[in-house]
């Protein structure tokens, strides 16, 4: 066991998988000598050389598009987008090719790549650096999207993503990169993709979240004192493992969903629809959403206006319980 923050856990996962499997390569802008703008890939170039830790030209479509070719020809590329908000030029490669190569060739060719995406607000960054676009990713057929929330699942989900036979978008809560430490196993382990995690049992209400908002959820629960909240970390946006959420809501009868992404057409809407289909008769109150607002993510001085807070979450929980 070693105490690690999220940056160290991801770095450790990359190092273990690169040692374990020669076909794993890391590529992106500044991932080599500089070790990445967040230092996530720090030291890898010294251990594995510049052919496997590639300081690529500055072009996101190029990074993902070449990764598609590499993956088809036997490598397992782990591409880094410096910030998730810079992936848009590469979306054609993600949507039109990475996601579809398996289907297009009936499984003869496959595309096992990973794109790492530092996402979310709260670090006083420039414009385009703070969005949470999991709803867009989760809507792409043939792509898996996972979100880490702590050092333990950051390591386990990344190793699972690298070993997955299909393309995975791996979202990293950059606000939490160094905000928490956990004792995590030294060896490689996986947190399975497609498994929702019930973090804390409770009887009064179900609180569903993921990523950096898991921290906000915990704060809200603490502030509520003796309300028994069942806390769920979705971990995989898609393919969504909705059954544990349904089981939980059948038990509690109440639910709040918390995400940092804007509300419109967001993942909370999807989860509510699934609860409507599978747990309608168990519901004792309308489900509430605590989310970002339907506005462009504000610049640094105003980002706290936008970001969900423990206060907003606790308020929603109280409203649902007192319905």
């Amino acid at each position, binding site marked *: 066991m070693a105490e690690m923050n999220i940056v160290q856990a991801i770095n450790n996962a990359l190092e273990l998988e690169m040692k374990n499997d020669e076909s794993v390569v890391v590529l992106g802008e500044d991932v080599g000598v500089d070790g990445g703008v967040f230092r996530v890939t720090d030291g890898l170039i010294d251990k594995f050389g510049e052919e496997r830790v590639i300081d690529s030209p500055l072009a996101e*479509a190029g990074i993902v598009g070449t990764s598609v070719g590499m993956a088809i020809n036997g490598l397992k590329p782990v591409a880094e987008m410096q910030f998730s908000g810079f992936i848009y030029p590469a979306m054609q490669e993600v949507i039109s090719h990475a996601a579809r190569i398996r289907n297009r060739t009936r499984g003869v060719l496959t595309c096992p790549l990973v794109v790492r995406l530092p996402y979310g607000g709260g670090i006083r960054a420039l414009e385009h650096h703070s969005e949470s676009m999991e709803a867009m990713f989760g809507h792409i057929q043939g792509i898996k999207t996972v979100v880490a929330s702590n050092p333990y699942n950051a390591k386990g989900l990344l190793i699972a993503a690298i070993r997955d036979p299909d393309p995975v978008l791996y979202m990293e809560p950059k606000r939490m990169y160094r905000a928490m430490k956990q004792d995590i196993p030294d060896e490689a382990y996986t947190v399975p993709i497609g498994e929702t995690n019930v973090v804390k049992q409770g009887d009064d209400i179900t609180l569903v979240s993921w990523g950096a908002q898991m921290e906000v959820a915990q704060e809200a629960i603490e502030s509520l004192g003796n309300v028994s909240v069942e806390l769920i970390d979705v971990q995989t946006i898609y393919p969504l493992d909705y059954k544990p959420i349904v089981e939980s809501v059948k038990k509690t009868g109440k639910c709040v969903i918390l995400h940092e992404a804007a509300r419109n057409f967001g993942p909370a809407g999807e989860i509510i629809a699934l609860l409507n289909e599978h747990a309608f008769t168990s519901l004792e109150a309308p489900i509430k959403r605590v989310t970002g607002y339907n506005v462009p993510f504000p610049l640094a001085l105003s980002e706290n206006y936008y970001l969900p807070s423990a206060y907003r979450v606790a308020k929603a929980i109280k409203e649902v319980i007192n319905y």
Partner: protein
Amino acid sequence: MPKTVKHKFEIEHLQILDEDGNVDEKLEPKIADEDLKKIYETMVVSRVFDQKAVKMQRQGKLATFAPSTGEEAAMVASTFALRKQDWMVPSYRESPCFITRGVPLEAIYIYMKGSEEGSRGEPDAHNMPVSVPVGSQPLHAVGLGYAAKLRKKDEAALVFFGDGATSEGETLEAMNFSGAWKTPTIFLCRNNGWAISVPTTKQTAAESFAQKAIAFGIKGIQVDGNDVLAVYAATKEAIERGSKGKGATLIEAITYRMGMHTTADDPKKYRKEEEVEPWKEKDPIERFEKYLRKKKLLDDNYKEKVWAEAEEKVAAAAKKSEEFKAGHISEIFKYTFAEMPYIIKEQMDYAQKTWEEENNG
């Protein structure tokens, strides 16, 4: 301080076989007689396949088809230069390239009829499937080549795209990456004059597409795209360069799209027949016939036989494709992921049940 000239560039143009079938013997590539005949036969099959496809589309037997008539030399001779281990990376017009690589004709028809079964391909055949979004596939060729290099495998990748695709950012990114990484990539730009209805003069102010290579530090060359020998020689040389670690090549093959962009448009709306007429004289198959005739590899009997056999092969493939039916409804779900998540399995079961209710009462 006077201005100085920092760099000067030249773009070579290569023609080995002229329109009358005269060959420049100094440049003539060494191709075995059997291979010359094979190239000819493949071009003929491609032409017959193409014309049949347009007819089939008109009869409602194919969904949409992008014809390649007139571009056979650019496609067949370049693909023929590949070694077995090299990758063929097409856009959507390259039926002749699939044919050259030995893909069954009916598979191409089945894909164009509307089934992914037709683009299944074979494991280890090193053919990429059709790529529809213009300019999105050159990057794959660079990645394929990078992977081959890292895995110490001598595999080049030949990627096809049209003149229009040179305006796409991803095509230019691919050339840039190939330069920076020195990958064994051959970019084959089929300059066929038209991007649907837009002529090359509206596509770029550059004097050639080949010169775009210069900016990326890769080799650029322009060839007569209707000259089998020039296309073959340039591609062969590019493969050798890539294989020796000397990097990528952009080949601009000047040719002409004799037909429509796809069966969904009518070229009469945007170009004059007078423009098409002179290109008929430059037909790549006829030109190659003249060469083969001079080399005593082709006579009327052989020619007749080749065309008759092509007709037979194409007819048999068309028949097979006509018999092909959509698979079971579950097939559309099966290949989304390696392992089917239950959220998709539930949909598949529902889809199957409701489809049966709706259609079998």
